[in-house]
């Protein structure tokens, strides 16, 4: 197979570049420079919207609608969880706690100023921060940027239906039947300990496509097998970089693409 000259970053690699922990983000940037040119996959924007942008929008909504900082944190925890509270705490840490000790109206304005900026800028940054994009599937959802909706944002990811989707993911899967057959065979012989929940789902979809020649894309199928979709798009790249070894080690053997696993956990300062 003739390989493309670029590397591909998985969604999580882009998110690591957003990490406050300097060793992780600095190392991710070093890898990006070392492997230049680096592309992302179009569908990664959908994953990024779900994993990062939607969380920012939740914070913006709760700040906008609350009467004090305590209420914000309670509502964020109830609506999201600890992780989302940590994101808001990150923003407060970045701005400096002292700068937010004024009255609530001022604190709210400052937080909203930054959250509004970050929702839009993170989305723009995602594509601008790599050298190109692979998008054989022509994902429709990936084109849907966060949109302002009154004082808030619409960051929903609608279920895919015939009326709202114009992608070519079916064609991508039909053209990848040989890879899917190898994948099914690899999952069938792999030790149980290597088979994650997502790999089981991936194998199930792959068997259907091999058997019927059709990919049931409607609804949220692509989001449930994002690793497979990204792997199929990245299969011709020079190297695929991810911190998600759990699924991609098996996928890369079956589909045949060079893999570089980013061991970010080892970089954390204790």
């Amino acid at each position, binding site marked *: 197979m003739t390989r493309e000259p670029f590397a591909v970053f998985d969604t999580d690699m882009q998110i690591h570049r957003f990490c406050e922990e300097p060793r992780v983000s600095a190392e991710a940037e070093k890898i990006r420079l070392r492997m230049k040119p680096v592309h992302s996959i179009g569908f990664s924007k959908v994953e990024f919207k779900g994993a990062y942008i939607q969380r920012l929008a939740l914070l913006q909504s709760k700040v906008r609608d609350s009467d004090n900082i305590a209420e914000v944190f309670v509502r964020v925890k109830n609506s999201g969880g600890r992780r989302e509270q*940590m994101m808001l705490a990150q923003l407060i840490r970045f701005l400096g706690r002292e700068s937010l000790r004024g009255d609530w109206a001022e604190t709210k304005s400052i937080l909203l100023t930054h*959250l509004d*900026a970050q929702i839009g800028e993170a989305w723009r940054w995602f594509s601008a921060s790599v050298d190109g994009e692979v998008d054989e599937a022509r994902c429709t959802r990936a084109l849907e940027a966060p949109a302002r909706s009154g004082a808030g944002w619409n960051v929903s990811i609608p279920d895919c239906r015939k009326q709202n989707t114009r992608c070519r993911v079916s064609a991508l899967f039909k053209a990848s039947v040989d890879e899917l057959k190898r994948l099914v065979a690899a999952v069938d012989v792999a030790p149980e300990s290597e088979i994650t929940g997502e790999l089981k789902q991936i194998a199930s979809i792959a068997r259907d496509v091999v058997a019927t020649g059709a990919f049931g894309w409607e609804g949220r199928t692509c989001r449930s097998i994002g690793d497979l979709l990204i792997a199929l798009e990245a299969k011709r790249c020079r190297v695929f970089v991810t911190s998600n070894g759990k699924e991609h080690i098996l996928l890369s053997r079956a589909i045949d693409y060079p893999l570089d696993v980013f061991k970010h956990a080892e*970089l954390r300062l204790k």
Partner: protein
Amino acid sequence: MTPFDIPSVPVSDEEAPNAEIVDLFKWLSSRADATSPNTPPQTGNASNVHYQAPRIRKRLRQARPTPLDTAVAHLATSLDKSRNAIERSNAFDAWRDAVRAVAKSPSAVAPEFRELLGLMLASTHKKDAVDLDEHTLAVLLDATTRLKSRPAAIDVNRVSAALRAVGARAVVPLSVDGLSDEVTRELEEIIEAAEHNRL
């Protein structure tokens, strides 16, 4: 109306605090000179001469600079190479203070306005004037000027692209994956304080 007719004007400081104080007799003289230099003011005929109180204030509309006007002026100073380094640094800090004050204002509600403010503040966070080149300062000046006239999404996109083009980063790292234990502890402290309504 005769040259000596005085138009009705506010007479109290409360009504026109910015008004210029006009000396009645000088004003009358100037009106007389304008019409007939050699004609003395008419006197004795009450129907022709109208007197107001001795102090007359004309209402003047003086444009007061807005906080954004001030911010633009500070940044322009920061870009002015004829100024010394300290002056330029102080001007940049004053710009940032002015923009932060705007960000604190509850009236800064339009999303695009906040986005633009947020981009400028995030891209200059913990930066001094010496850390930024003239291209970056020029982008910030353009962005601050755009704030003055109801920015739209296109303004936000242009400023975002312009900041990237000069290497200024406006994204803030907020991912919580892979945080060190020290940072995690600090964030947990912030959360606990916030949950008790104090930061």
